[in-house]
């Protein structure tokens, strides 16, 4: 659970939230831990929070390595499975 996954910011929302996109999954994440963030930034997401900004190359490299290591699928599932809407299950 210490893994963090790179995603791209596609819109900024109220209350320190942003929507990030990754592999077709869109997800609201908190940006409360970042000094500043803009649409198009790549961020490292951990338990629903953007922890850091990354360069695009770094984000892609990390994703590729995660995919090859087989951990990307797990992480995506976790991210998609418990979206904010799904929290009531």
């Amino acid at each position: 659970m210490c893994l963090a996954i790179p995603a791209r910011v596609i819109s900024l929302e109220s209350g320190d939230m942003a929507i990030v996109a990754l592999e077709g999954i869109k997800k609201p994440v908190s940006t409360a831990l970042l000094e500043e963030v803009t649409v198009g930034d790549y961020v490292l997401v951990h338990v629903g929070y953007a922890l850091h900004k990354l360069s695009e190359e770094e984000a892609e490299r990390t994703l590729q390595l995660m995919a090859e290591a087989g951990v990307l699928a797990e992480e995506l599932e976790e991210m998609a499975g418990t979206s904010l809407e799904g929290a009531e299950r």
Partner: protein
Amino acid sequence: MKYITEFRDGKLARKLARAIEREADPGRRYHLMEFCGGHTHAIFRYGVQDLVPENVQFVHGPGCPVCVLPVRRLDDAVELALGHDVILTTYGDMMRVPGTKQKSLIRAKAEGADIRMVYSTQDALKIARDNPDRQVVFFAIGFETTTPPTAVAILQARHEGLTNFSVFCNHVLTPPAIAHIVNAPAEPGETPVRIDGFLGPSHVSSVIGWAPYEPAARDFQKPVVIAGFEPLDVMQSALMLIRQINEGRHEVENQYTRVVTRDGNRKAQTLVAEVMEVRDAFEWRGLGTVPESALKIRAAYETFDAESRFALTPKQSREVKSCECPAILRGVKKPTECRLFGTVCTPENPMGACMVSSEGACAAYWTYGRKRGEAVRETAA
């Protein structure tokens, strides 16, 4: 299916392996502890141990948040859920860890407790907003990476005036645990674990920076290299440690420069410091009581502290008998030395925390260890 994933850049891996072989003095032993369960996982998945000479050994550390939480705190969470009629929210990793008498949160849920798995503290806040007539407790576990999201949730709850949200805080700190491992006297009947250097955690360090390891490196003369999660990072970091050991240096070096800086994420640190302070001591599974090794919620935020909101009864908590998790977390035993490993205890039916979390050493051994011989031949070919 391959049990050990091949390196994408096999050439670079071989180059690093050759450099390690060349630089590791055959007359010396190098015991390198990877603190973090994420590294343990990478080492197993890629068979890194088998790519380095025999005198370079990886020792698995306690950096698995689910693994180090002592059984009493889990029992407390079960009590909160069953005895205080709250909605208990927690990360998925926590659900299947057996508590005293093998009672896990999943079992408490089956008995009627309202326990909900969340992906984020934001989900826990939403549950609190949607259920104003219920108390909602977030069972918080994890190292420094996972702490800032808990702090943000508390600040947000206060800002919104949520009166039915609180946190059962179990956040722990990495640097005091590292100091404790090198400094603590061995348990009776145990040979102390030998450690010549540490691979430091990457995402934890992205939050706290690498400066907080400096006192431990200096005082105990053990080099620390902050290492990224990828197998090539791990190998490069091992090489950096070997060089330090050969040269008699004990510095904190940063291999994971892509993300980690000396100071870390200042904003996250400030938010955590606003809401939480260091506990005098905290119990860890395996390590025992470690001074100043965990965080609690400050008195100013007491209303969001489940420990002061609910009266928890003292209890006689007990691990599953014969589970060697505590010794494994100290680095003195291997999972295969546990009688229950792979027979009674499997990921489907875990007897201890180290088999539940994918970051736990027992789960890593189970998933990759058994097939190691074959897979490594495949990888090396």
